[in-house]
């Protein structure tokens, strides 16, 4: 098999890191969206959903501008580490997180909002803090939605192309992901390699999604209210 294992490794590490980062920043955003009573909540929801409609090139362009060596963030990062963000794994990670944000936040928020609010209030009245209530009541009851968001983030990152090309480029072992490898193979008329890698990506994506949906149906069905 002429699979590009180096690209596979980059893709999986990127998808896993993106998923973890999205879990850490996506849950607080989703909690805010699910429970806030602010009128301008819709603006935040719209911003979170933007990557669904924007072409990846537009998103990639703004990330390049925002994190490039001429931007304050880019300069600060360069002073601190001596490296630049664009065309590095870190830069790619930032872009991936933004690009997959709606795939994590929307299922998270829907799952949190569907938990009976009185359960949360009951927990508060029993003297349990908001953070502990999240861990003991909200997270367990919203788990199916949280898992869905994580799986979608993982699968979506695995398959992204435009953003990777714009922000990451094509550095083997650093930013060259599976989707870029396939594109390169086709450009080089190496259809055997492109076919093998494509099939691999197809099988992995399908297996991840199928497992998740199967698990959700079985394990959490008894939790739904009568």
């Amino acid at each position, binding site marked *: 098999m002429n699979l590009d294992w180096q690209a596979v490794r980059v893709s999986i590490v990127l998808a896993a890191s993106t998923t973890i980062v999205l879990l850490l920043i996506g849950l607080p955003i989703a909690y805010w969206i699910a429970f806030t009573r602010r009128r301008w909540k819709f603006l935040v929801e719209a911003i979170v959903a933007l990557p669904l409609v924007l072409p990846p090139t537009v998103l990639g362009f703004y990330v390049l501008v925002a994190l490039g060596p001429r931007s304050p963030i880019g300069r600060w990062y360069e002073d601190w580490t001596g490296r630049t963000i664009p065309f590095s794994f870190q830069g790619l990670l930032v872009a991936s997180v933004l690009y997959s944000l709606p795939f994590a936040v929307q299922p998270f928020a829907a799952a949190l909002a569907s938990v009976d609010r009185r359960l949360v209030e009951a927990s508060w*009245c029993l*003297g349990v803090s908001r953070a502990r209530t999240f861990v003991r009541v909200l997270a367990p009851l919203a788990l199916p939605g949280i898992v869905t968001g994580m799986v979608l983030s993982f699968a979506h990152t695995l398959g992204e192309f435009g953003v990777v090309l714009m922000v990451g480029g094509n550095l083997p072992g650093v930013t060259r992901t599976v989707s870029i490898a396939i594109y390169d193979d086709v450009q080089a008329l190496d259809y055997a390699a492109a076919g093998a890698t494509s099939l691999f990506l197809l099988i992995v994506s399908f297996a991840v999604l199928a497992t998740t949906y199967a698990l959700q149906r079985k394990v959490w069905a008894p939790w739904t209210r009568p």
Partner: protein
Amino acid sequence: MDAPLILVQVERTFPGGPRIECELELPSDGASVTVLFGPSGAGKTTILRCVAGLERPDRGTVRCGDETWFDSERGIDLPPQRRRTGLLFQDYALFPHLTVAANVGYGLGDRPEAERRQRVADTLAMLRIEGLAPRRPLQLSGGERQRVALGRALAPQPRVLLLDEPLSALDAPTREAVRTDLRRLLASLARPTLLVTHDRIEALALGDRIAVMSGGRVRQVGPIEDVFSRPADLEVARAVGVETVLNAHVVDRPSEGLITVQIGAVPLTAVDPGHIDGQVLACIRAEDVVLERGPIGQVSARNRLSGTVSSITPEGPLVRVRLDCGFAISALVTRQACRELGIAEGEVLTAFVKTPSVHLIARGSA
């Protein structure tokens, strides 16, 4: 009397909705159950939520003993975590992913493991639901869920118990059994309780004191007997129903299906509803009381009460006559009858009450 345990004085307006005003005290002496009574939508639950800290009043104060829980002017608003009320939700809101034991122990998180386990065991034993410990809420009946929810609220030993329509989630046959149990339990807990209900029977069976809400305001507060037999105004009378409510106790079952209760020294005969003993409430609708003066002929009514007229209040086409016959009883008669009998304050009259017109409500063991 000491300072009240809970003092609520709040206002809350919902945008485009009703305006709710409430002034309410829970006495600090012992274990009385105060019922917040009123029709659906009167704002009862909102008041309860304001006490628990789940709803923020627009204006006012909520105090508990010497602590201030809410004060709009001083900008104090304690979160529910620091008020630690024992709130029982209408549909119980048990945590579906936790066992009964974990639900009951949920509010004990800051205590050492051994103490926590002991407290859970004690609470389950007190409620006689030890056998349910490993089950999950979905595997419980309505009555069992209510007990578990009560256990969860009681385990951390809250200063005040707040019950929101505790029986409305149950089906009718269960409700009756659970009601008697709940009364007994509340009496044995000796914990100040505020209970919200729109059901008269529930209010009568569970409460010691009653606060009647109507049109977003508390109209009258007092002992159950007083409020039911001496409503402050027409609104209250309409909300509680025109009825005389008397504390009585069962003394005898003279013959099949009949029961004799005593109010002070006066005996009353009623139809035996079964399963009652000790303290009861005797309820007599004012429209079921017949008044007569002069020599008494043969009448079928078993209960004849002689007394003096203490007040006469016109109510539309009718007149409410209050008679003092060792206790107060109200009769509703037409203006015409009032004229023809020449009823005036201080007159001596006889009131007739038919046996089936005396409704008895169990109050659990006294």
